[in-house]
């Protein structure tokens, strides 16, 4: 509960890392001569670099913090976000979509939409994307500042501004190239900084078998750890099997999700919407030096992505297992409370000693303002005469029956890392946030400069002008992200919010791309109205549905609660599926009802059937996307089977 003191060595490691990322920015400064150098890297980077940057840019708050939180909440089923919700889409991107993105010479995803459809689609997509990136970045930064606040006792605001400043410096100096290069460095930092914590955690719980048998006990009575409401119980495999609890329906798995929502909502709509159309990741592949490298980028990225669950989900499971082992004296951290709340709590415990039990519990709960564990509070009140204030405080901390899942990762780092390794693990955390932040900022500045500023605000200026605007908007983007970070600080689980935002914007988008890339008859009007309808549809869906346990408001249902889903995740997946189907149907119908504005000749290189197939049979199999993709998919099926 108290913050950890960093030693000299820990700060040195942190400083070395900061020096290197800033140094990379300065080293690349002299190559930044035009807007395309700054915003698109001049298409000059080899595949292994863009591939690792591709996956690293995706590592924001989502990965280390959010996925460990999900690992604790839902167990191994969180792997669906990888083996169902990522790999197939990444393979699809490489084989089918990269040829159009890269071959069309578009500088951004919205620009591709302009080439394929018209300005309206581009405008809608670029504005929605710009808003979304700023939000995603803000969520990531909020999580970072919160962690630094907890771990080091750093001031939240100071941490937020300093980390943003580091990212600002290296992105401003070296542009996209700098972001991509540092992302590769950050990728290795994250893996190498974090692996020992997972190793020590597994060793502590007695390796995989012992962890699993503990989690089986938890699954049958999650209320014992205050993980779920009293009376909730699952099959023994709820935390340790990915598929079996899912097949049992929403009430049989802690995610509260049904099979259709998981496979169609996450595995198809959300996943393909994110990986295949999100410029944040696609931009990395578009910066590759040639078509082969561009297509290999998502495939190279898919290899670490497939293995990441070991690094990010397992810690969450370790945390639950440790909490269930009484001799380990560990608990998943409760929500962070101010020191004054604890002082008030201690006083209330002392005052409660003379009260009858129900009254005593009520008094203590009110003082703490959180859900408390009745048995633990009763025991604490009974012993309060014999305990000193710090012990009562510790007792209160242990008795809080709520969890701050985002704190899981941090609590494990604190538990296992001696000085030295602590600095490394902390630097890894910082690296993951910085890579996500830099990814968002570089995608934002490119879309803003090329797709909004150059397209609508100030066309036909000199390239130097756009170069300077790109740099200026980098600063603005970071400031907007900081504003969003303060906004995000009002929420508890960042993951659910990100899914919601992606649901609004990305879910309908993939329908537009699917029809646009594979159906020449699809028209600009159809795409625009379809996309607009899809986004509106998701907002309406959100306003009419609610997840069980939530009150109408920002979580949905603010117009009228027509349908209640068993969990927020189910609500999000269904929202995405709904938006996708609306967009697909509208685009189809309106396209058939409107005239084509682009000829077959104009659509060459933009639509599958009108583009000559790429010939790569001469290349070695391991350089060709199709065989590589197949190998990855087979690997994915095997992993799903092992952890079924």
């Amino acid at each position, binding site marked *: 509960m108290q913050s950890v003191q960093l030693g000299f*060595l820990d700060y040195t490691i942190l400083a070395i*890392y900061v020096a*290197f990322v800033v140094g990379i920015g300065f*080293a690349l400064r002299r*190559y930044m001569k035009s807007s395309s150098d700054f915003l698109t890297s001049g298409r000059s980077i*080899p595949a292994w670099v863009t591939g690792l940057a591709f996956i690293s840019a995706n590592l924001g708050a989502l990965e280390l913090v959010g996925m460990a939180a999900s690992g604790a909440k839902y167990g191994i089923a969180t792997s669906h976000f990888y083996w169902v919700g990522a790999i197939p889409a990444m393979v699809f991107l490489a084989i089918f979509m990269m040829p159009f993105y890269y071959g069309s010479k578009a500088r951004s995803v919205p620009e591709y939409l302009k080439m394929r459809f018209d300005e309206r689609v581009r405008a809608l997509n670029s504005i929605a994307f710009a808003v979304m990136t700023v939000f995603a970045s803000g969520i990531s930064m909020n999580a970072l500042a919160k962690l630094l606040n907890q771990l080091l006792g750093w001031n939240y605001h100071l941490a937020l501004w300093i980390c943003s400043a580091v990212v600002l410096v290296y992105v401003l100096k070296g542009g996209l190239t700098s972001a991509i290069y540092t992302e590769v460095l950050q990728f*290795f930092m994250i893996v190498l900084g974090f692996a020992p914590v997972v190793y*020590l955690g597994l060793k502590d719980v007695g390796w995989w078998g012992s962890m699993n048998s503990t989690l089986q006990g938890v699954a049958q009575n999650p209320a014992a750890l205050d993980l779920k409401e009293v009376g909730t119980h699952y099959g023994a495999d709820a935390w340790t099997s990915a598929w079996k609890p899912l097949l049992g329906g929403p009430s049989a798995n802690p995610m509260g999700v049904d099979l259709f929502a998981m496979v169609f909502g996450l595995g198809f709509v959300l996943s393909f919407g994110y990986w295949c159309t999100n410029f944040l990741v696609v931009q990395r592949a578009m910066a590759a030096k040639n078509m082969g490298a561009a297509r290999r980028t998502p495939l190279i990225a898919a290899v670490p992505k497939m293995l990441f669950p070991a690094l990010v989900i397992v810690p969450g499971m370790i945390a639950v297992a440790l909490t269930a082992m009484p001799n380990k004296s560990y608990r998943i951290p409760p929500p962070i409370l101010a020191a004054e709340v604890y002082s008030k709590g201690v006083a209330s415990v002392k005052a409660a000693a003379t009260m009858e039990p129900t009254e005593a519990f009520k008094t203590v709960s009110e003082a703490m303002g959180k859900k408390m564990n009745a048995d633990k509070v009763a025991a604490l009140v009974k012993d309060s005469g014999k305990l000193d204030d710090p012990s009562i405080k510790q007792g209160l901390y242990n008795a809080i029956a709520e969890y701050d899942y985002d704190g899981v990762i941090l609590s494990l780092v604190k538990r296992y890392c*001696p*000085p030295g390794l602590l600095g490394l693990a902390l630097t890894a955390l910082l690296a993951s946030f910085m890579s996500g932040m830099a990814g968002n900022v570089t995608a934002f500045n490119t879309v803003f400069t090329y797709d909004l500023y150059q397209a609508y605000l100030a066309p036909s200026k000199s390239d130097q002008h756009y170069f300077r605007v790109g740099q200026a908007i980098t600063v603005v983007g970071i400031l907007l992200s900081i504003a969003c970070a303060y906004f995000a600080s009002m929420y508890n689980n960042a993951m659910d919010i990100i899914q919601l935002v992606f649901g609004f914007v990305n879910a309908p988008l993939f329908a537009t791309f699917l029809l646009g890339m594979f159906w020449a008859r699809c028209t600009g009007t159809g795409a625009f109205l379809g996309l607009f309808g899809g986004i509106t549809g998701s907002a309406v869906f959100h306003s009419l549905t609610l997840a069980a346990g939530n009150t109408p408001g920002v979580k949905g249902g603010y117009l009228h609660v027509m349908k209640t889903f068993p969990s927020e995740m189910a609500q999000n997946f269904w929202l995405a599926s709904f938006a996708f189907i609306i967009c697909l149907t509208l685009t189809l119908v309106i396209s058939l009802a409107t005239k084509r504005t682009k000829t077959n000749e104009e659509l060459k290189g933009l639509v599958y059937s009108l583009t000559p197939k790429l010939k790569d049979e001469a290349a070695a199999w391991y350089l060709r996307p199709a065989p590589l993709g197949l190998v990855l998919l087979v690997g994915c099926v095997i992993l799903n089977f092992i952890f079924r």
Partner: protein
Amino acid sequence: MGLDIRWPIGLMFSLIGSLLVIYGLVTGSNAEIYQRSLGLNVNLYWGLLLLVFGGWMLTMAWRGSQKPGGPETPDDGKSK
């Protein structure tokens, strides 16, 4: 573009690895520090691993610099 990223990666991990190894050797006899890491001198072992990784990156970067213009080197002479 100008810079082979394997140089900074290699340098950084060699540097951090060396620091951890030295610290691990110096503090190896101090059982209290390593109580947290379940009695393992993780600084020493993990530092060694980082050194090996950093060294490997540096070797790759050096080999890349020996054959400029090769198809798989990051600095393939395409910098404008």
